[in-house]
């Protein structure tokens, strides 16, 4: 069995505290999800970075193709009207 098959790569997501989102913090190698969670705890929460951990097998993440970045994302650049920044917000509403 190859090294990669024994110890596949996992992506690690940490939630800093209740109410916030889990955020990608890095990756690590582990035999399975249980060991990946323990390794994530040891590698990424040593300085009280969070109170919840997700791990996802890297092979299960499907990514957009960097060579298609132009056709994917550039068409949005001239459509500023999609930003909700053309409204007068009444003072009573306060911060949005």
């Amino acid at each position, binding site marked *: 069995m190859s090294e990669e098959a024994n110890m596949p790569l996992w992506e690690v997501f940490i939630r800093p505290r209740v109410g916030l989102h889990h955020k990608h913090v890095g990756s*690590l190698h582990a035999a399975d999800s249980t060991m990946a969670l323990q390794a994530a705890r040891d590698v990424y929460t040593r300085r009280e970075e969070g109170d919840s951990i997700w791990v996802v097998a890297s092979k299960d993440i499907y990514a957009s193709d960097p060579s298609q970045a132009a056709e994917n994302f550039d068409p949005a650049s001239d459509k500023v009207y999609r930003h909700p920044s053309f409204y007068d917000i009444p003072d009573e509403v306060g911060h949005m």
Partner: protein
Amino acid sequence: MSITIRNALLHSVVQIADDHLILGHRLSEWCGHAPMLEEDLSMPNMALDLIGTARTLYSYAAELEGKNRTEDDFAYLRTDREYQNCLLVERPNTDFAHTMLKQLYFSAFMKPFWDAMHHSSDATLQALSHKAVKEIAYHIRHSGEWVVRLGDGTDESSARMSAAVSALHPYTDELFETDAQRLHCIEQGVLPELGEIKLQWSQTIDTVFTQAKLHRPNIGFPQTGGRQGLHTEDFGMLLAQLQYLPRSYPGATW
């Protein structure tokens, strides 16, 4: 606190502190040498937990003794016969299987010990137990999962784990040893009875060994002596490394 109980407690606190310091030192030997980066962080993490507990206990011992000694005097400036750790914790790391099994044996003992210490009549030890029990619970999980995966893994990993069981299991009886002073602390409600703790230790080990497809051997000749300061040959080398700096540069600080 009467003088008798204070001396008995001092004696027992040093024993528990020595277990933590020596096992913590053994774990720290892996730092920079672990089989993978993840474990290179994990083992020193556990080592720091153990050495942190040792520090609290040595400071308390120094206070009980009342002779102006410090935690460092206890940790670094005693001779080999004065250390009273059980032999299990000083056994060499040998390989990753030995290291994880040693960790499991010790943690499976300390978890019910600290649980019981929540009811200790000694306020300092009771307070420490609440911090230590969380750390040790994780150590059981981490070492236990590895024992399962190595025991029920490849031909080589299971052979190594079985070899570790044969080598280390005879050292586990000493965890449950009590001397006259320990007994006095138990009678006074300062330290817990070890009977119930042994039952819980056995349950933890049996659960892990069943999953790991490991056989728990009968102990023909228990290896003991550490509590009386009679150590194995490897202990001299460990102490030489542990004490080198404070003995060569007395009073050195960061």
